[in-house]
């Protein structure tokens, strides 16, 4: 089976983000960038499916030239080849979904696997929009994926429990946290990844207009938390809750 898996370049989540002084975004200069962790899980699941069923795993990312690093990271884990759609600036979930759709139409994979959301904007929209635009079935928030013949069975994490659904390929799956533990890239894998093909496209070449439909007006740091207070006894605590916090 042929699998198209997407990876997004995001800030390392161990880095504390700083808002740019003009509020137009967060500072990314000199900040360590990684593969979106949910996408890493999507890559791992794609590799597992390939190991079981044979086929090919194609990694797709959207971003500047630097994003090649994240594609290579997925290739180092074992994916076969990469596609980079070159785009400066922010690409909103709708534009991303339409770009992935364009690549889908070129590649004709059996399955598209995405992370359920990216940890930078937490939108959780690209997978759903993609399925809609393609008119394909979608199984989001997957915690278990099984493939038998043409049928994909997915266990989803939903409010109040687990839901099991199935569809016939082609279709779209988005990966949740407990789907798997991504493997480490082996050194031989990292070496091989350097020689694997990464094709580049522009949005124009794919016939997609990525002008954002969503405009970010302003980003602000959350208000600094006030320091805690120690109170000598319960009476003072109740007094403060009533008079200062107005919580009682």
């Amino acid at each position, binding site marked *: 089976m042929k699998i198209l898996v997407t990876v997004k370049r995001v800030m*390392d*989540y*161990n*880095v504390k983000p700083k808002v740019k002084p003009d509020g137009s975004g967060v500072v990314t200069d000199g900040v*360590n960038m*990684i*593969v979106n*962790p949910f996408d890493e899980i999507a890559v791992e699941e794609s590799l597992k499916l390939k190991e079981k069923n044979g086929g090919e795993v194609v990694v797709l990312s959207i971003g500047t030239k630097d994003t090649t690093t994240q594609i290579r*990271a997925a290739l*180092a884990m074992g994916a076969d080849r990469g596609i980079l759609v070159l785009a400066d600036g922010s690409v909103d979930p709708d534009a991303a979904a339409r770009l992935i759709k364009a690549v889908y139409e070129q590649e004709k994979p059996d399955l598209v696997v995405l992370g359920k959301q990216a940890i930078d904007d937490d939108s959780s929209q690209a997978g759903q929009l993609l399925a809609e635009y393609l008119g394909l079935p979608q199984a989001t928030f997957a915690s278990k994926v099984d493939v038998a013949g043409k049928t994909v069975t997915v266990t989803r994490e939903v409010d109040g429990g687990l839901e099991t659904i199935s569809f016939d390929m082609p279709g779209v799956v988005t990966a949740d946290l407990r789907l798997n533990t991504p*493997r*480490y*890239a*082996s*050194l*031989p894998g*990292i*070496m091989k990844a*350097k020689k694997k093909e990464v094709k580049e496209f522009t949005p124009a070449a794919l016939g997609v207009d990525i002008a954002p439909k969503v405009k970010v007006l302003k980003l602000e740091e959350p208000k600094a938390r006030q320091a805690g207070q120690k109170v000598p006894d319960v009476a003072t605590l109740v007094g403060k809750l009533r008079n200062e916090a107005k919580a009682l």
Partner: protein
Amino acid sequence: METRLPANFILRLREEFPGDVITTEPSELAEYGRDWTRVFLPAPSVVAFPRTTEQVSRLLRICSQARVPVVPSGGRTGLAAGAVAAHGEVVLSTQRMNRMEPVDTLGMTVRVQAGAVTEAVHHHCAQAGLTWPVDFASKGSSHVGGNIATNAGGVRVIRYGLTRQWVLGLQVVTASGDVLELNGALEKNNTGLDLRQLFIGSEGTLGVIAEATLKLCRLPGKADVLMFAVPDVAAVLRLFRAARTGPFTINAYEFFTDRCLARVRRHRNLASPFSAATGCHVLMEVEAADPDALAAWLMKVMEEGLATDGTMAQSSQQASTLWALREAISESLSATGMPHKNDVALPIAGLEAFCVELEQVFQHRYPGFEIALFGHIGDGNLHINIMKPDDLDKGPFLVRTREADHELFALVQKHRGSISAEHGIGLLKKPYLHYSRTHDELALQRAVKMALDPLNILNPGKVLDV
């Protein structure tokens, strides 16, 4: 020898200090009377938690007048029982002496109280882009005072050296309660004997460290964390030979055997990045100016078969997971069994020959025992842990290890090594000190002790007997 407190001694301490400074609570006595070793039963009479140098001085003056022994105590993460109080001593804990002054970014120094936690110092200095490069697994608990008193080693010694190199000034309280300011914040000070160095690594036997001016360096650049699978210790050394000439600065070069890993898996449920069992894992952290040169070097390592498998962390999360495998070993061994710990150092060039003979000692002394071997092999430092078999009682086990230690240390002596690379001597290694120090050296050490602590009230019985 049991301490006999003079009449009303504890009452006098309570009168002398604020209410929360002195405690005789049994649970506190048990807790503050021991370190990470579990060989001796803690039994101090009193625990004192001074906040200031003045209180430390007053406490020592009183103890000195009353001839009551004092055990200085920091984060109690020691592995040689140097902070164990088993004979009714007064424990002087630096727990509440944790004030840190602002970082001097021009002089690249910071002055802290002895009870500042090592990791807290790191966080404090990181805000100024600086660090105190003394770093090891127990940094979340250990105190700066303890680091200095034990001249602590750790995982970055290969790049930065020991604690000794990163202390500019010391404020020390002597046994009689006098306060010494040694060297201040001077980088250069060529005025006679450098007494500061005498107290570094003295394990609380010469004076109590109250404050320190630490030398800082810039935070290291972006590091790459690599892990390799190799079959045995000889292969660990072969890979190290290649790394020595690699196109990078080595921040750390650590190794551990599969046995250590199995214990880590039992305790912390962390898994190796490699699917197959390998023999040994090497963890290497490097700072490479040129990533392509590093990649080329790695390619050569794999092509030449210096490692059977390897991985490079792709995110800071992966890097810390790889480090966790190494740093969890010590706690995992203690949590899942009873290790008898040895911490030996060898000249690096002689490590391989030593390891061959070490294997013979194991076969002779510990047939069928589980031996967990790990360490900072880039510094020539091996941690040898003999695990107590479940069907052997603690008593006979300790008798056996005591006998075997003589054979081990004779081997260390033969290869011109040290019987304690970084753990210190404390109580645990005292009977073996002569394997690493000559008769003349020991006599001089005694003379120094007698000059600084003539009443022998500072951590008596530790390191050497007077």
